[in-house]
């Protein structure tokens, strides 16, 4: 079953003292559903805190895939997922362990994703400059998804094999841009952005595995039976006859 893009939603927050952001409601539908959330946060004093939870619809708690802190201790990027979200409209709340100065958050949904082992081995990278890149191996029938973050950005260009799914720029908080893109696993396994100028960046990427079929058949019981044949009596073997007697 092929992976397909469903819907997305994004938001930004600024101004300091922020501990959580609610992403506007978005709907998920279709079979073998899967959600991904990306969150980038910045704090101007020593260390930006980690994401403490990402919850959709009040009960669907995401599994962190990465939460990478740049060497400057100020720029942090999270990527996490939830498998088989309810087929419904619901918002996503991202909460940090403590306050941040600003944050950009986005989430999207896919269909056709393997429900038991949805992701492969992820990769992350951080740096400063214009070439934002991470290499992650993916099989031909998988998708690679990435979450890139460039700080103080005027713009960026994604790799030729990638499809930009969303990008959000925080107009008030240093102009940071966060975006997510996808790429077929049959491409070059390189997720890249080229920033318009040299800047701090963080990127993470992970392969997504396709569902093997739209229908899953599970064996839930075993049916067994035994049969026996009664041993025939002498009367049955020789009906109406004299039963022979053998004397030795």
């Amino acid at each position, binding site marked *: 079953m092929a992976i397909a893009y469903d819907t997305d*939603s*994004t*938001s*930004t*927050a*600024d*101004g*300091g*003292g*922020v*501990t*959580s*952001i*609610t*992403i*506007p*409601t978005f709907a998920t539908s279709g079979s073998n559903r899967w959600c991904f959330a990306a969150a980038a946060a910045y704090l*101007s*004093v020593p260390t930006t805190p980690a994401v403490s939870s990402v919850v959709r619809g009040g009960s669907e708690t995401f599994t962190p895939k990465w939460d990478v802190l740049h060497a400057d201790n100020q720029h942090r990027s999270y990527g996490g997922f939830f498998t088989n979200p309810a087929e419904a*409209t*619901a*918002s996503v*709340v991202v*909460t940090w362990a403590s*306050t941040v*100065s600003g944050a950009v958050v986005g989430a999207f949904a896919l269909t056709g994703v393997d429900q038991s082992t949805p992701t492969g081995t992820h990769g992350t990278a951080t740096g400063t400059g214009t070439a934002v890149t991470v290499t992650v191996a993916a099989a031909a029938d998988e998708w690679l998804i990435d979450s890139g973050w460039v700080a103080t950005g005027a713009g960026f260009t994604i790799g030729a094999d990638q499809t930009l799914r969303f990008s959000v720029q925080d*107009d*008030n908080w240093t102009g940071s841009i966060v975006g997510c893109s996808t790429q077929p696993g049959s491409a070059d396994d390189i997720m890249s952005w080229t920033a318009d100028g040299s800047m701090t960046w963080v990127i993470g990427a992970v392969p997504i595995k396709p569902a093997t079929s739209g229908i899953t058949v599970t064996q839930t019981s075993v049916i067994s039976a035994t049969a026996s044949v009664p041993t025939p009596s002498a009367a049955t073997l020789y009906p109406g006859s004299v039963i022979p007697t053998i004397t030795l």
Partner: protein
Amino acid sequence: MALLIDHQSINVPAGSREFGPVAIPDALTQVALRLARQTTATPTLWAAGVTVDLKSWCSLDGGVTWLQWLGFGAVGGNFHEMAESSVESALPPGAGRQIKLAVTVAGGTLVSRLTVETT
């Protein structure tokens, strides 16, 4: 740009208070919710220890049904002289859209100024 709620002074004791609903002009595509913070120049606003959970709901059918929309949680006090805490997102297209808000306060009384801005 349109200021649907323009720096409205609010004084919310511990508990919740709702604002709106307000109509969103059809042509606008972005909404931002802002709460003024304490700075050196505004020492009486949003004291330290006061936590705020700002939630909003958007209606795409003139107020008949409501979807949970933008929001943020934040704590008060002077945070590096930042004048506002805000959250912003794109709006879905449509006619007759409305937005309403709820501010839930704990740890004291929230004294601030509320702004809802669309572009």
